[in-house]
């Protein structure tokens, strides 16, 4: 039953059929709490899309468009019951000295669609990022980049945080990390995700550990 719903939901997403997606939600309204809806339908569907992208079956445009649908659905169903969104360690996402925002936008909406709350720092420099992490007591930091020099700057962020003894989990992602599997370790990140659904898996795990 669940997997059938996920199939249908995934299909609706891949054809950008917002109405069909909403119908699946409404149909199962009584049986599922909003959180269950997220965990049993949205997260698995996004996960399948992520794997599909990794394997070359699904394209980024489909991921982006379905992310938009899910983000809206989740905002609609979650706003009345925000508890899941507040009782987690503080988390933020930023694009480090880079002009390319799409990767971050996709990861941000996948995380929100999966019920997480996070601050969006937009484009940010190393120094500004370090300052805000300390001031805002961020425990989990996601960094997205597209250019190689920006990816290499993650190491600077780590060094500056270490200097002041600030402990933060750093999760990185973006094209340079996808093309060099070792790069995330080299820049001293704690984890790297290949796509938005991996971001959700990693964050879920980190949140359990914290």
């Amino acid at each position, binding site marked *: 039953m669940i997997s059938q719903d996920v199939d249908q939901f995934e299909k609706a997403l891949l054809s*950008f059929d917002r109405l069909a997606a909403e119908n699946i939600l409404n149909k199962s309204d009584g049986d599922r709490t909003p959180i269950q809806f997220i965990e049993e339908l949205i997260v698995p569907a996004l996960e399948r899309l992520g794997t599909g*992208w990794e394997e*070359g079956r*699904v*394209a*980024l*445009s*489909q991921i*982006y*468009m379905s992310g938009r649908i899910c983000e809206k659905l989740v905002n609609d169903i979650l706003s009345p019951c925000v508890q899941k969104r507040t009782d987690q360690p503080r988390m933020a996402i930023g694009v480090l000295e*880079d*002009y*390319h*925002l*799409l990767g971050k*936008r996709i990861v941000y909406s996948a995380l929100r669609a999966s019920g997480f709350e996070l601050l969006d720092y937009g484009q940010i420099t190393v120094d500004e990022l370090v300052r805000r992490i300390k001031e805002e007591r961020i425990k989990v930091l996601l960094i997205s980049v597209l*250019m*190689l*020099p920006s990816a*290499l700057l993650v190491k600077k962020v780590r060094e500056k945080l270490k200097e002041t003894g600030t402990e933060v989990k750093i999760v990185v992602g973006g*094209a*340079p990390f996808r*093309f*060099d599997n*070792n*790069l995330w370790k*080299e820049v001293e990140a704690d984890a790297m995700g290949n796509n938005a659904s991996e971001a959700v898996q990693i964050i879920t795990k980190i949140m359990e550990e914290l």
Partner: protein
Amino acid sequence: MTPSNITSLQRVLTTLGHQEPDRIPFFLLVTMHGAKELGMSIKEYFSKAENVVEGQLRMRDKYRHDCIYAFFHAPIEMEAWGGEVIYSENGPPNSGEPLIHKFGDINNMTPPKVKDAPCLLKVLKTIEMLKNKVREEVPIIGVVISPFSLPIMQIGFDKYIELIYEQPKLFEHLMKLNELFCVEWANAQLSAGATAICYFDPVSSTTIIPRNLYLTTGFKIAKRTIAQIKGPTATHMASGRCLPIIDDIAQTGTAIICTSVIEDLAEVKSICQKKIAVLGNLNGIEMRRWTSEQAETFVKDAIAKGGPGGGYILSDNHGEIPWQVPEEVLMAISEAVHKWGQYPLDWTTIENS
């Protein structure tokens, strides 16, 4: 033919004719390393045609590869459209804020004329000067961003995906404008002396859009545009996937397809066999930390997969070597091509069996 009497251009043409030349042709697509060589910042380097001419010639002397690359950077086209180029000290320039803020702005746009854009005239001057130096010996590769891929810089990536799916009329209109510009820009480079045009079209890659959408968009646009470009083209997905659409790409009239390291070169080659030549696919990002031994291993592997029968040019998989890749690695790649790339590739059959 012995290596001494065959030029780089002949070597490339032979392979494009799906024959084996004396050795695997090798395109080292360095854009910024010339600046290092001349001891200049990247910004200063790209400010004058003379610098790029000198940089390209020195790179070729050093690494003995088979082309001159007249590519400055992608944002230079945006500069012609009125956009901003943001330079970096240790990487390629990026384009600034998108020019189109609302979809409706597309109705008020006019494509720039090449003759009125000093940044493009600088590239043309570079090509002319290089042509005077290398004549018919070395192919000079010019570059255009495809009409279908340029809008990521014109309007932003997220808005562009929405435009494609949700605003078909404005999308078509923008494509008309971009096609006009792209054709004029490509042909100007060919007239200045470029031998071929690299058509960067990563939005068409199945990494970015699904094949069914490609067939109604990027494919048709490439077919129309390439038909008007008066010289050979190579289609580059900038390290995005091409495998599922190779047959379609071959039908756009392009001569070369550039494949990513995430695809199996042997599989790509077997699909392209005799239809279209293949260029690729060393991992430029990872290259930065290769040892000389690793460089040799990757080059040998690429040669063994792509080389047999010709129809193959060895290169990186993005169309640009990152600034961070050390000279030693580039030298090791070059040496490996010269050592293992001589036809006939007898060693590949021995090692395979």
